[in-house]
């Protein structure tokens, strides 16, 4: 499925043929966050909740395509507490620049650590497009509210 990426795209749904599960999810989440009338919420908390809603809506939108990054992201979001990372110290030979870049990419893409290289590259492409689309969506929402 070809998805057009253009961060400046005013249309929140770059592919008009696809349903907008992420868009609706995100708006519902915003409404829920806004209606939450717990008075002592610190301002930073609301921003963090919106951020979680953004990543959740991305993962939900990608779920029909069965992307591994989407499953990994949803798992991470559902974990209430941060589980401590198992740190295994392994001595390896000095890595090449490309190998270090690959390591960094595995850290940045949800679930990246478990993937073989081909999958990592494919998943990265999809993750990039979804991230860019989510950013477009949030910019569009911000513009709509401020007008």
């Amino acid at each position, binding site marked *: 499925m070809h998805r057009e990426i253009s961060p400046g795209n005013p249309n929140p749904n770059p592919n008009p043929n696809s349903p907008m599960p992420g868009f609706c999810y995100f708006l519902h989440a915003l409404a829920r966050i806004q209606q939450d009338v717990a008075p002592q919420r610190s301002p930073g908390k609301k*921003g963090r909740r*919106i951020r979680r809603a953004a990543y959740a809506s991305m993962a939900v939108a990608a779920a029909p395509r069965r992307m591994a990054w989407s499953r990994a992201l949803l798992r991470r979001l559902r974990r209430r507490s941060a589980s401590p990372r198992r740190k295994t110290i392994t001595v390896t030979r000095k890595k090449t620049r*490309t190998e270090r870049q690959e390591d960094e990419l595995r850290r940045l893409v949800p679930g990246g650590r478990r993937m073989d*290289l081909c999958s990592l590259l494919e998943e*990265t492409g999809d993750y990039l497009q979804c991230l860019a689309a989510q950013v477009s969506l949030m910019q569009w*929402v911000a513009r709509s509210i401020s007008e």
Partner: protein
Amino acid sequence: MSSRRLRSRQSSSTRITEDQIIELVSKLQALLPESRIRGNDRVSASKVLQDTCNYIKSLHREVDDLSERLSQMLATTEMSSAQAAIIRNLLTQ
């Protein structure tokens, strides 16, 4: 292209061909904002990975900033009028 350096961590029983890697890296390159400037010039795999990491990090930062902005905007707006504005904008696409 230094794709030869992108060593697969697979055992030889599940070999990923170098051509597959080259193709995937070039698909990734096409998604990067730099590709609008560079066009289809061949770029090293290492550079593509670096640019990809930087792009992901900048998108993560944008999500953070926009979340913060939206939380501030919603603090000063009634949700009902925000929803009305959103729907109005959507219907006039």
